[in-house]
């Protein structure tokens, strides 16, 4: 018998008969046990991306998206997961937008959703198609805030938290993990939602700098990544730069992930490309636009797009060459600094040509 008492209406609505598929996300005991069995010594954890993904990302894992859709997100590590043909992954995350192509290429086939889309560019047609065609199975629906509370509860070291979100909504009817209860502190009727602590199997977190032990320094919005580093059974840090431990000690502002949680440290410059890396490079809007407006239209299109951008690239440097190489690097660095008012480009024109006009190739995907 399962140790977990899931919301039965949600199980019915989600057509989940065998609930074992749900267990690992809330199985605190197994997460604690995995954490206890790790080598806790302060040791050099550097690995290549290929080796880190091969060793620490397993078929059937609960993988959490990190960063914010395409900001400080380990895109190049996700691409390596695709190249290594991992499968049966459950993806979770708030946002969880990167599950879309993971599903398109068969790496992921289960969804824990709070948001999957491209903000002002609207809903993701590839994800919509995947749900309709059954290429992904929805296991739970969330809001950003309640999923964030589940991750934070894990970091706080508590079985869960009581929330005032989700009440009255249909999300409750499609989430086996959450329960409406009476607030035990009150004598008057006060419905609250119990949100359990959430423990993904694997978090890959891209940061600006880390030392060889895994102490990681971050700049820009942390979103849920500090909580996720504490919660996940396994953690891979990919970093723009590996700095000496002394640098982390003397510049500890922004050091938010302790080495104890980390299993592997990967030096991975441009690891967030074609997304945005605060302080380092701006996202390639044309790449994303073409993904959302063209590639996501059909499986044939996305196959062609990823063949060019992922499967025929051996690493992130091949990818950057295709974006425009050193010219792209210079331009994207200038843009991200301009956006933060950190260079002389005050009033810089952020307009650009949409991907449609790329026949008149500039050679750079701005």
């Amino acid at each position, binding site marked *: 018998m399962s140790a977990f008492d899931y919301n039965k209406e949600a199980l019915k609505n989600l057509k989940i008969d065998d609930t074992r598929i749900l267990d690992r996300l809330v199985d605190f005991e197994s997460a604690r046990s995995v954490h206890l069995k790790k080598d806790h010594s302060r040791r050099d954890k550097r690995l290549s991306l290929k080796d880190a993904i091969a060793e620490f990302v397993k078929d059937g894992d609960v993988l959490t998206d990190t960063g914010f859709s395409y900001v400080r997100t380990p895109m190049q590590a996700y691409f390596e997961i695709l190249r290594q043909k991992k499968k049966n992954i459950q993806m979770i995350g708030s946002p969880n937008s990167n599950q879309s192509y993971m599903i398109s290429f068969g790496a992921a086939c289960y969804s824990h959703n709070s948001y999957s889309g491209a903000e*002002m560019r609207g809903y993701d047609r590839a994800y919509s198609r995947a749900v*309709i065609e059954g290429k992904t199975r929805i296991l739970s629906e969330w809001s950003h805030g309640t999923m964030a509370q589940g991750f934070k509860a894990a970091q706080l070291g508590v079985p869960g938290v009581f929330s005032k979100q989700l009440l009255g909504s249909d999300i409750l009817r499609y989430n086996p993990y959450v329960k409406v209860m009476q607030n035990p502190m009150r004598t008057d009727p006060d*419905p609250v939602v119990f949100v359990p602590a959430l423990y993904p199997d694997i978090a890959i977190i891209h940061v600006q700098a880390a030392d060889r032990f895994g102490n990681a320094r971050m700049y820009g919005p942390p979103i849920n990544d500090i909580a996720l580093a504490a919660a996940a059974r396994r953690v891979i840090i990919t970093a723009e730069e590996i700095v000496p431990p002394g640098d982390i000690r003397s510049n500890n502002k922004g050091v938010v992930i302790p080495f104890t949680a980390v299993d592997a440290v990967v030096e991975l410059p441009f690891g967030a490309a074609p997304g945005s890396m605060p302080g380092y490079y701006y996202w390639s809007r044309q790449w994303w636009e073409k993904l959302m407006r063209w590639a996501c239209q059909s499986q044939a299109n996305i196959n062609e797009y990823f063949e060019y951008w992922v499967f025929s690239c051996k690493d992130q440097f091949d990818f950057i060459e295709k974006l425009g190489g050193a010219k792209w690097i210079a331009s994207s660095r200038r843009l991200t600094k301009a956006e933060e008012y950190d260079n002389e480009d005050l009033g810089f024109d952020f307009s650009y040509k949409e991907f449609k006009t790329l026949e008149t190739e500039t050679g750079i995907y701005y």
Partner: protein
Amino acid sequence: MTDIKPANPLEMVAYNLSLQIEDHKVVYVGTGLPMVAAILARKTHAPNITLVYESGAQDPLEGGMPWSVGGPFTWRKSPMILEMSYSFGQAYNGYVDIGFLGFAQIDMYGNINTHMIGIDLMKPKVRLTGSGGNNDLSSLSEKMVLVGLQSPDKFVPKVDFITSVGFLTGGDSRKKAGLLGQGPVAVVTNAGVYDFEPESKRMRVKTLNPGVAVGLAQLATGFELLKPDGEIPVTPVPSAEVLGILRNEVDPLRVFTSMPGA
């Protein structure tokens, strides 16, 4: 000022959203028209508001329009950036005065759907984005303003999925469900501005945009709109000065305020 082009429907929406914002308040925004509205408010009648975002960004210096809630535009020189869980915590703890929510569908009680079009979440006609922060803000913020384009397939008798609760089934059902805040205080569309009748909590016409008759607004709505007693006022129209600020300073690249195809 000579012959300034009158406000297009999106500019009307942005302007009327901005009028929902009082000075000195904390405004929770996403990308799109709410952000345009908040920055316009700051440059006009509400110079002392503070913008916060679900990415955790607090009070950025303003500049060009952001492409993503996570992008540097939303946290440019922010004094600090919160984690996502703490960002929504601000709304629970009473530090957010007003939030803006978009929708794919809305019903007469201001309940919102951003999940799907169809009857089965497992096999929808169209799968949409899901909640994001929509449910969190609707559950927690003191006031919320709903914004979207108005048509019978968006203004429906029953939403296909309740992503976020407005007034649920009307009356005091929102409060009974345990949710915080006053619920939706306004719906701003390309046809007009709506509020909710205080007892039934049903959507009611407040003002109609120039050229929009009440019959037309009803035609664009899949449920019966309540009408106020007496003549229905015309929605405020931005002055030439405000339009100039909107076009030249707030959204000069027309990222969010140009009409599709225009």
